[in-house]
């Protein structure tokens, strides 16, 4: 597994850049690191709202929420989520939040 070093922290990642250790290995530095890869200039309250909702949902349910649930809970329409995370809720937001990589017929 490749590793990346950022601000003194070392993260194990897979080829897609998802955090191999999942939520347990997640920390604020990870968010800073992913931000740059994911085309995000400035992290705002709104980014954190999405990240927090994803993490809470995952801790409670063991899966990432469906897109429409994410929209409902955050109050952000999908368009807004793409404005915040240009690669979308899966590749962008879930990666940043330290959730496992989306699977299935993607």
């Amino acid at each position: 597994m490749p590793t990346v070093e950022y601000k003194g922290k070392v993260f194990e990642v897979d080829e897609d850049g998802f955090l191999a250790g999942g939520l347990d290995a997640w920390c604020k530095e990870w968010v800073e690191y992913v931000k740059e890869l994911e085309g995000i200039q400035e992290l705002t309250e709104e980014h954190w709202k999405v990240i927090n909702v994803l993490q809470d949902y995952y801790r409670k349910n063991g899966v990432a929420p469906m897109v429409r649930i994410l929209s409902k809970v955050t109050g952000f329409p999908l368009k807004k989520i793409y404005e915040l995370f240009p690669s979308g809720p899966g590749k962008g937001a879930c990666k940043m939040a330290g959730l496992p990589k989306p699977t299935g017929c993607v």
Partner: protein
Amino acid sequence: MGEVKKHDTPKVDQLKTGPWPSFVDDIYSYSEKHKKQACFDIMGQMELSYTNRETHWKHGGIVGVFGYGGGVIGRYSDQQEKFPAIWAFHTIRVHHTAGKWYHTSALKKLCDMWDSRGSGIVNFHGSTGDIILLGTVTDQLEPIFFDLTHQLHWDLGGSGSNLRSPACCVGKSRCEWALIDVQELDYELTMAFQDELHRPAFPYKFKFKFSGCPLDCVAAVARADMSFIGTWRDEIRIDQEAVRAYVRGELKPNAGAFSDRDWGPFDIKKEVIDLCPTKCMYWDENEQKLYINNSECNRCMHCIAVMPEALRPGQDTGIAILIGAKAPILEGAQLSTLIVPFMKVEPPYDELKDFIYKAWDYWMENGKNRERIGELIQRIGLNKFITEVMGLTPIPQHVRVPRDNPYIFWKEEEVEGGWTRDVAEFRKRHPA
């Protein structure tokens, strides 16, 4: 270009023999000409898979381009030491043209781009319809997307839980049976729903397919969640003189499709009249005249396909809409089921778009994670889907046969007295 390394591929090489065009020949001759290590490595990994009888691609892969949530299928080799040029081998879905008509200048530009940024290997086309660019690395994805959009003016196709790339038959461009302009319809709806295609917002995937007539050359009824089939509701047009020409043997049945074998002289009774599924045709031997009872015709296309120069579909044309086709996972394979027997369609297709949004709105709100719309209909029932979701009136054409079990749900307001009963009242007449 540097040195390339060819792997030893005895099993794969056997597939160069035989008369059918060999993909092995194609890939090797391309890779030798272009000195592409990725192509040699692909053949090497394939040889390994043939030997081990298992795939050597890792599970999954999440890559893409900014702004979109789909269109690229990430893949990584699990033999990266042996085959470093295919450590990543992502697939890009490029949206095909309606009916798959291309100009060589466009294809040439696409090839130039792919020669320089990808493996050079393609699939023309993926089963859903897209042009498939097979194999590139992550760093090339954005440049490829930039070239596609800025130079070729082409966009990506769909992947993920979204509207996948719609597809249609050749339709009016070169088929005399096309009852609607499927290419225009395909194009208009594809453009109207770009957002739904590029940014997954659905419980699961959703596909549109458009066929100009019931012969269904894109297999819409089997391979699309929403299947649009051209149809007509007036009379089949008969050219009696041409019918007689078939009977006399001057015209070849099925436009000669069966001439590689001697099936004997054309027999209109045996090959048309007796094969009509509704038995609504009659050939009068004395009059030398064909009769069709159009009110009984189910527009199966058989007679028209056998005698294309004598019979033509009607002129009052529209579409039938069927919903729900899917492959077996999870609840079993389904063909689409009839929802709208006939709808007139004309640009800008507003009525049709409303219809589509109605189905989507309900499915997006009520569909479970990874539940196809066909499974949702199974779960809530066709009746509820037709009446409550789509706001349509149930008609006999919605079913093949009525139900044969008596587990019938009634709405409370349909039943006199409703559901609230007092058992004490019952006991007054029926002591325990």
